[in-house]
């Protein structure tokens, strides 16, 4: 705690104001005279500056005491050069006035009373008034203020406020920003001097090698490693000497020019050489010696700064810095006690594309065994961070290998321990099970690095919404081998339950990872050992896979798994077989699914009915499911099925059930109603009207005319986020449109025209009309660049062509919309002229106005 008086305690003074002012003026003058005399003797260096700064401190303390009371505690801090006690005759007095609480009217009077006398005495004051609450936004504050804060020093008042101010935010982030800004400022300033220190009339402060460069090097050390400059070849003594020399020269420049003048002109050089007692028969000789010393010191400063810039550690997160050999902890003791911070170490190395340093790995190795899996990811945020960490990208294999080698991976994912250095002898595998597992992830990261344009499997990876779940599945795909090699897929799938619970995975995600682990051998078995030209083989495989997202993930998992068996195992021949199975299954799932409908005798129907809630009867469920494609049951959870069955019962013609659900950033609109012309295009039109970006969806029409449509979309224009009544309005509009009370086409027209004008398609749309794959439907596949209202325009064109839109699969992959429509016309497939006309119409719609 500071022992300085509080303003309230010593505000009163009995002396008449004029006398007080005269006394203060005399004190200030005395202080200035002292510095001037030392300067004239050539001794205006560090010591003289310190004395002057201390006398200025006393002056500020006196003003503080007389400034009146404040409503909360307050502290006054010197910043920049004044903070370093290097105040020169005409330097700015940089002050931070820091309050413990938000300022009130009385506080402003106090600030005024404190600063006005300084101005009255002709001092140039740079002041910052803050409250400690502002500290939370410190990382966004003015860069020069952040740098000045590195030299902050308490003068008077509550000295603890500074720690509270700076402790309110993540100082590593503040330091990182300050360093980045410092580098930018340095570059710009040095560029003004053509980046050379050899100036004939150097600016003692601004020139390369001058005082600002010296302070910059010191600031880098303070922000990163206080011992940094002592490790430079320049050495601390040379820097001290340079500082002393430059301060003396600057003091002479201020004294001689009687103002804030830092340029060492030829004239000033002569006076400085005389004041500092340089020998020589002529002024020129003395100046040459002075400038020779100047350049020597400036070179030392320049070299030290370059060293600091080159080798200085960079803060990369709380308690984390980047050092020469990688990312390490700043405070090892703190890190050892906080295992929940360790993932950030590996994440930082991943982000910076560097290694984790040896000493950090040693720390992890020494302490990992002391903690349980939950202690590494104790909060939802740390669990989410672990999943983010697992997203495939260059370096993931190396970081996971480091974690494994340091014993962290087995602690974090205890199921992984069982395959540590596990040897399983067979004809194919060349590596231990753990290394094989990690190599699958290396394959994946290489695929991610290649980018979607580099190949078909890379494109599948790029299309995945949650590739981290694929990595999790790969980590677990062989953990069962630690228990029983023959049954390892099933064992592995069971073990997924543990990690899913620890990481708080949702039911859907857990089921996906279980599926991938449990079925990880199936796709290679079918592709390489079965006749995939037999449609029945493909149908059976499609039935196991169920939906395209799973198919894609299983395909890429298989590719990565086979490729990690040995360098020779994944041949182009095998890749081709795998790809063909993928394409055939994809086509089955997206094109042929319409003909595989649910009948009430199916075991799946009985299972759904058996676990129904009490308010829905088995008959209602059977009736609802009858006639829907089997795919429906793979797309919706049981709860969703019961909800659909409940809402669809006794639905009269014209009635509509509509509801919205939100999951993270995504919304889902479900509509259950009876079919009518333009129904699907009206739904998609309303969503476009409100600027929603439709990401994926499914539309099912039962033979009895019941329609179940679900659209997943993002609230692109934040309509729902910004309007409390937005959800109700959206639903109301849908009901009005379906009821014929609102014409969506008319309302969308202007918006659509705008969107079409802006639209510049990057690739030509594809429309493929297939009349052969299904006995019941004409199937239209469309791949086009995603755009506002695209789905609406396409489906409207279909309805205008007299088609009934019976089934729809909507998906969006990056900028690509991939939609598959199952159409009929009057209950039959389209005739050749009809589908040719439709294709032409769709092409026109997709290509937009010419």
């Amino acid at each position: 705690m500071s022992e300085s008086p509080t303003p309230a305690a010593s505000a009163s003074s009995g002396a008449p104001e004029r006398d007080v002012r005269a006394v203060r003026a005399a004190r200030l003058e005395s202080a200035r005279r002292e510095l001037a005399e030392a300067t004239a003797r050539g001794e205006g260096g560090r010591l003289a500056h310190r004395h002057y700064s201390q006398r200025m401190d006393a002056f500020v303390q006196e003003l503080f005491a007389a400034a009146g009371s404040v409503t909360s505690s307050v502290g006054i801090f010197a910043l920049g050069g004044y903070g370093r006690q290097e105040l020169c005759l005409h330097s700015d007095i940089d002050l931070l006035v820091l309050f413990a609480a938000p300022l009130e009217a009385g506080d402003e009077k106090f600030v005024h009373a404190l600063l006005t006398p300084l101005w009255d005495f002709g001092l140039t004051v740079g002041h910052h008034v803050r409250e400690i609450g502002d500290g939370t936004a410190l990382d966004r504050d003015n860069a020069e203020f952040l740098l000045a804060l590195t030299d902050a020093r308490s003068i008077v008042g509550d000295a603890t406020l500074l720690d509270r101010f700076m402790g309110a935010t993540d100082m590593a982030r503040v330091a990182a920003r300050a360093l980045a800004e410092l580098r930018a400022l340095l570059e710009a300033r040095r560029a003004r001097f053509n980046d050379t220190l050899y100036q004939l009339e150097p600016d003692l402060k601004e020139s390369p090698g001058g005082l600002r460069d010296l302070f910059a090097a010191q600031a880098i050390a303070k922000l990163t490693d206080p011992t940094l400059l002592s490790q430079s070849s320049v050495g601390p003594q040379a820097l001290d000497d340079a500082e002393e020399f430059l301060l003396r020269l600057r003091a002479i420049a201020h004294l001689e020019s009687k103002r804030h003048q830092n340029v060492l002109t030829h004239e000033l050089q002569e006076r400085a050489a005389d004041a500092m007692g340089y020998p020589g028969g002529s002024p020129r000789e003395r100046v040459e010696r002075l400038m020779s010393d100047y350049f020597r010191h400036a070179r030392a400063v320049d070299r030290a700064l370059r060293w600091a810039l080159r080798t200085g550690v960079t803060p990369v997160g709380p308690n984390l810095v980047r050092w020469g050999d990688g990312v390490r902890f700043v405070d090892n003791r703190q890190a050892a006690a906080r295992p929940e911070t360790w993932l950030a170490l590996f994440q930082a190395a991943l982000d910076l594309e560097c290694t984790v340093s040896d000493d950090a790995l040693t720390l992890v190795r020494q302490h990992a065994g002391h903690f349980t899996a939950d202690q590494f990811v104790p909060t939802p945020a740390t669990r989410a961070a672990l999943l983010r960490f697992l997203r495939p990208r260059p370096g993931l294999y190396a970081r996971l290998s480091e974690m494994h080698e340091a014993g962290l991976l087995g602690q974090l994912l205890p199921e992984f321990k069982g395959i540590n250095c596990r040897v399983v002898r067979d004809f194919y595998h060349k590596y231990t099970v753990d290394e094989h597992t990690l190599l699958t992830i290396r394959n994946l990261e290489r695929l991610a690095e290649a980018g979607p344009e580099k190949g078909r499997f890379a494109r599948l990876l790029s299309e995945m919404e949650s590739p981290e779940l694929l990595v999790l599945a790969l980590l677990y795909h062989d953990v069962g081998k630690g228990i029983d090699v023959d049954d390892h897929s099933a064992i592995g799938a069971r073990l997924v339950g543990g990690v899913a619970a620890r990481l708080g995975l949702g039911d859907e995600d857990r089921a996906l990872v279980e599926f991938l682990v449990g079925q990880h051998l199936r796709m290679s078995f079918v592709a390489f050992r079965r006749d995939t030209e037999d449609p029945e083989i493909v149908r059976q495989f499609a039935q196991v896979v169920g939906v395209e997202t799973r198919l894609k993930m299983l395909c890429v998992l298989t590719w990565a798994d086979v490729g990690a068996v040995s360098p020779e195992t994944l041949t182009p021949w095998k890749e081709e077989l795998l790809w063909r199975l993928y394409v055939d299954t994809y086509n089955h799932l997206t094109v042929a699914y319409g003909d595989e409908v649910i009948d009430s005798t199916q075991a799946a129907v009985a299972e759904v009915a058996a676990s129904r809630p009490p308010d829905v009867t088995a008959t209602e469920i059977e009736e609802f499911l009858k006639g829907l494609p089997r795919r429906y049951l793979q797309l919706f959870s049981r709860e969703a099925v019961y909800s659909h069955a409940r809402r669809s019962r006794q639905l009269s013609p014209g009635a509509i059930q509509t509801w919205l659900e939100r999951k993270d950033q995504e919304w889902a609109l479900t509509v259950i109603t009876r079919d009518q012309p333009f129904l699907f295009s009206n739904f998609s039109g309303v969503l476009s009207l409100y600027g929603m970006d439709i990401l994926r969806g499914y539309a099912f029409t039962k033979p009895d005319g019941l329609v179940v449509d679900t659209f997943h979309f993002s609230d692109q224009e934040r309509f729902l986020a910004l309007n409390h009544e937005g959800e109700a309005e959206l639903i109301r509009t849908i009901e009005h449109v379906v009821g014929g009370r609102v014409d969506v086409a008319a309302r969308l027209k202007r918006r659509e025209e705008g969107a079409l004008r802006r639209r510049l398609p990057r690739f030509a749309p594809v429309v493929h009309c297939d009349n052969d794959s299904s006995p019941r439907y004409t199937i239209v596949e469309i791949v086009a660049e995603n755009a506002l209202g695209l789905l609406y325009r396409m489906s409207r064109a279909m309805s205008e062509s007299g088609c009934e839109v019976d089934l729809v699969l909507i998906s969006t992959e990056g900028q690509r919309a991939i939609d598959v429509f199952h159409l009929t016309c009057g209950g039959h497939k389209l005739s050749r002229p009809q589908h040719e006309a439709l294709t032409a119409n769709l092409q026109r719609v997709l290509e937009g106005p010419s």
Partner: protein
Amino acid sequence: MKLIKSIVRPNKVDDVKSALEKLHISGMTVTEVRGHGKQKGHTAIYRGQEYNVSLLPKMEVEVVVPDSIANDAIKAIIEAARTGEIGDGRVFVIPVHESYRIRTGEREV
């Protein structure tokens, strides 16, 4: 001696191997190959776009057998590899004049 070179569907290799083993023919060379016969591949559609699959993945199984069992071997391969559909593959039979065991330099006639 005859070299019997069979181009078969990938999923039929295990069946062909089993059939040959029943004839006590255990030494064989199996190679992944790609090609097309009369069917000249086919057109596949992925996401609405057609692409031509001209070279189809097949397996090549090579065995060298004494003349005395060549016909049995050919018959066994054909039976094991047949599905009755286009793309079942081919069997080529080539006379072998001599063969040498590399390890010992021994000549077999």
